[in-house]
């Protein structure tokens, strides 16, 4: 393992999420292989890597949605099963059927279901929290809208609001920037920064390498194995990208330095 990497690893009980020896396999091929990861509290972290690198699986494993072959995940020093309430999940927008007969407010209120527990119905308090979450993503005028009538960007913001309604400590987002309009992209970035200001930890699967230095302060490069993890300025380097993406990052190399490029925008 890279010695520099180790220096940036927070102690186990101070990490928001702490992953050890995580290996996940579907069928006969490992999707994640022996991944160690320690995410410090309060960072905005991007998970980057080529297609099929296991980014989504990484998030799902941290949420307990896939069974790892080996390894374990701790959240604030305890097994994640005891800390589920602290993890807010924003799945890929395309993972659900948006023709489902329900409205925006109803979807956002699902973020309160875990706190409500079995059998109890959402009431006024849940409605208020959901409205509040909708305001944060500027979707409150759409509370009564059928979800089938939303644009892609609006769908994404509804999913974000649903996670916000949960009032989690750590947010895990799977490609929230995928196929959204400029307004939504701006809204998401503002939201990420506000969450960081509140001391929340945010982990985002991200595809657009150009914007990594601009949007995030921490980066996790992944390609089945861990390539590197740490502050963006130290670890988001051409060499690490080449390690993660193989030859495919050559085009990006010409635009070096990426970080300066993005900042000058």
């Amino acid at each position, binding site marked *: 393992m890279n010695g520099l990497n180790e220096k940036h690893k927070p102690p186990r009980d101070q990490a928001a999420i702490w992953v050890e020896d995580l290996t996940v396999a579907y069928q006969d091929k490992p999707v994640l292989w022996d991944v160690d990861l320690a995410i410090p509290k309060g960072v905005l972290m991007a998970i980057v890597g080529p297609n099929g690198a296991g980014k989504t699986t990484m998030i799902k494993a941290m949420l307990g949605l896939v069974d790892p072959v080996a390894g374990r995940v701790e959240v604030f020093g305890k097994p994640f099963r005891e800390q589920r*309430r602290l993890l*807010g999940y924003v*799945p890929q927008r395309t993972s659900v059927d948006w023709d489902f007969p329900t409205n925006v407010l109803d979807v956002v209120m699902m973020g309160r279901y875990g706190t409500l527990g079995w*059998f109890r*119905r959402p009431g006024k308090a849940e409605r208020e929290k959901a409205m509040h979450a909708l305001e944060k993503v500027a979707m409150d005028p759409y509370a009564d809208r059928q979800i089938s009538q939303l644009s892609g960007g609006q769908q994404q913001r509804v999913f974000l609001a649903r996670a916000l309604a949960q009032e989690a400590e750590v947010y895990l987002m799977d490609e929230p920037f995928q196929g959204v309009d400029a307004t939504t992209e701006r809204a998401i970035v503002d939201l990420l920064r506000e969450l960081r200001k509140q001391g929340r930890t945010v982990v985002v699967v991200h595809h657009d390498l150009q914007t990594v230095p601009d949007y995030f302060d921490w980066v996790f490069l992944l390609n089945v194995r861990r390539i590197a993890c740490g502050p963006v300025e130290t670890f988001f380097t051409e060499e690490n990208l080449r390690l993660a993406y193989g030859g495919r990052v050559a085009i990006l190399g010409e635009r070096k330095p990426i970080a300066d490029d993005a900042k000058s925008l």
Partner: protein
Amino acid sequence: MNILTDINFDYTLRIVALGSAILGALSGALGAFAVLRKQSLIGDTISHAALPGIAVAFFFTGNKTTTILLIGAALSGWLATLFILGIVKATRIKLDSALGLVLSVFFGFGLVMLTFIQKRPDANQAGLEKFLFGQAATLLAADVQMMAILAGVAVLALMLLWKEFKLLSFDEDFGATQGFAMNRINLMLTTLLVVAIVLGLQTVGVVLMSAMIVAPAAAARQWTDKLSTMVLLSAVFGVAAGVSGSLLSSRIPKLPTGPTIVLCISTVVLFSIFVAPARGLLWRWLRRRRNRRQFRAEAVLLDLMDMARHHPNLEHPHAAAVLHTLNLDGRAVRNSLAELAERELVRPAGAGLWSLTQAGIAEAQQLERRFQAED
């Protein structure tokens, strides 16, 4: 000839209608979830797979009591769902193939058992084949009572677990992150579905039962965008089909009840698909036609404007024939010009010539601005 007095006086009809109503309500309500979860065909598999359960239950107990046969049906339907889930999980066979596989194997085995039992020298075996297509007339008051109790329990469970079932149907993974044991919720919903299907077997039969699961829900989805309304409406459609099917088959001789109920619900589906507001095909078709006409008229107006720009006077007339070459379809151009003339945006200048009016020029300029803004 009064249907209402028939219900009052004919005891058998009353039992049948009540039984069919309960079956319609329950299969409608639970079918809504099956349809929303894209599991319509699971209902079909469960109902077909119930047949061997009925045959085996009779084979081992020699008892023809409905309760015992239906317990057999439920167990076998249940086993089928376990097989489906197991096949999908353990092999590379996809859900649709797994459904087909399990359905045909179970149903085939059921038919073999049925034939075998019927060939036995036993006076008691007659009547099992009624479960193939259903025979509502054999419903007893005790059967309907049992249906009512089970349906009551199912409705109670549905109300209690409403939020959990909604979560399961919309976003199962998110539900798991909320700390719910989603496989347990799935188990409960599937169990309720099995109960709904089994309760319908005596009336509608294993072959047609899936229609009672899918059809009311598909019809209800056309009319509403709210889950609770959809479930309720689906149940209401189920009741309506159950009752009207029973009444029809009692009035017309030799009309079997089960298939008639299915035909009734099919009529509701057809009607809903075509005329339900917003989603109805008829309205969609009319909307599309109206939009196309409007776009075509706007295109003709803009073409006229383009040509007019070549002259100092914007109201300079141009030949409709030129517009044809620009728009390919002559009849469409004629219709569009007539429509524009009606709105007083263009006027005929004789000899197949048309010119813009002042209002037409203003409208064209506004359209141009709109298209530019959208670019």
